[in-house]
């Protein structure tokens, strides 16, 4: 199978949207059948964020200054923990192979899976973050910016993470390997995400950080699905 040719060949536009819609709907249905798993992932985020005050200090000023970073690192870890779910199940029962063999473009199908992954992992994290932010003594404006950065940033985590999840499909110790591959690539998202909240808190304004995060999201949207589809084909060969 010539991976590059089939991945990058122009596809009729009327095949792209139905493929994305189908993949989103199907993955959402699968994810919602195991709600407990989704709940556990969200709980992981809450617990990691709750450990830091115990490890450092309950003093409000310190908590407010480490809060944005802690909440963002916890979001990175929660994303990392949920990534194997993206392809591993479908790979194990052969569904992924059928998806790759379908006449619909694999890039579109993979994009749909990434969207569904974000809706079930990144979005809940962004929505629960203000509650945790309150525990870290963050003010109203900082909380709003925290949610905004997570809404823009977590899709980037899902997009980049999908490449790593596809590359490590079916390998030994794939979980820790995935962390080594993906966390260095998450660094810019972490810097701009946590930096935006910090800048708001100190009165500098978050617009530059938010613009850069938005730019990162656009670049990731354009590039990551192609790399991810290529990685899926490599894993299936």
């Amino acid at each position, binding site marked *: 199978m010539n*991976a*590059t040719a089939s991945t990058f060949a122009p596809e009729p536009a009327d095949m792209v949207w139905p493929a994305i819609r189908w993949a989103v709907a199907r993955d959402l249905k699968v994810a919602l059948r195991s709600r407990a798993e989704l709940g556990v992932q969200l709980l992981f985020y809450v617990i990691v964020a709750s450990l830091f005050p115990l490890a450092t200090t309950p003093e409000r000023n310190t908590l407010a200054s480490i809060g944005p970073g802690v909440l963002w690192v916890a979001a990175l870890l929660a994303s990392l923990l949920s990534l194997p779910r993206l392809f591993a199940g479908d790979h194990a029962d052969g569904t992924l192979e059928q998806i790759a063999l379908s006449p619909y473009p694999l890039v579109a199908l993979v994009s749909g899976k990434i969207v569904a992954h974000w809706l079930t992992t990144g979005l809940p994290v962004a929505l629960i973050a203000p509650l945790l932010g309150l525990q870290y003594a963050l003010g109203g404006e900082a909380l709003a910016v925290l949610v905004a950065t997570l809404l823009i940033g977590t899709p980037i985590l899902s997009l*980049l993470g999908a*490449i790593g999840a596809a*590359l*490590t499909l079916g*390998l*030994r*110790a*794939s979980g820790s*390997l995935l962390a*080594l*591959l993906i*966390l*260095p*690539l998450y*660094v*810019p998202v972490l*810097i*701009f995400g946590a*930096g935006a909240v910090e*800048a708001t808190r100190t009165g500098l304004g978050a617009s530059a950080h938010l613009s*850069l995060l938005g730019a*990162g999201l656009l670049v990731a949207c354009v*590039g990551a699905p192609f*790399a991810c589809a*290529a*990685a899926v084909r*490599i*894993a299936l*060969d």
Partner: protein
Amino acid sequence: MNANWFKFASPATFYPLAGRLIPWFATGAAVLALVGLYIGLIAAPTDAQQGDAYRIIFIHVPAAWMSMFLYVVMAGWSAAALGFNTRLSAMMAQAIAPTGAVMTFIALWTGAFWGRPTWGTYWAWDARMTSELILLFLYLGVIALRNAIDDPRRADRACGVLALTGVVNIPIIYFSVYWWNTLHQGSSVSLTKAPAMATIMLTGMLIMSLAAWFYAIAATLARVRTIMLERERGAGWVATLREVRTA
């Protein structure tokens, strides 16, 4: 001239060529390193501000240059491997990764030894040091992914995709770390304001950089030869090699 540019794209023809080139590059690296170290450690004067501690730059700076450059070269070979589906390109990418990781490690380690006497700390979250550390993680990621995949063809392509993803991200990572660092102007020390360098120091550093180049080429070629033997052990041309028959 009608040369066949692809003659040496085959392991069977490249293996003996690499074997002939290695002694030249290895000798070149040794001679250049001796000259460079003589200039750096003996001929160059003691620095007025940093004393003799500055002399570590003759190792540190070439290693740091090579660490970044080798990642780009590795990504280039990976792109060639993915684009043209050539075996040798992927083997070259595989052979470069450990040398690049070693150069990154040397740059970080000598940087720490330089930092201690000059700024009083082994480690500061300076933009360059932080991005060099992340570069080390990227190298280790490529090597770890390679080791985790048993099928060499799949490993080639998976590492290729990872190396290309990394090379797109390196400027973004560097920029973000730099920006983060300038926003957090704490007690940090500025590495960027390098004092104007005397010509003899610059000469020593350039010669040491050439030595690092030659060493990297020799090490990569030596490693790619063993990779070729390992992967092509079933091929006919390997069986006809003198070193294989006598072993």
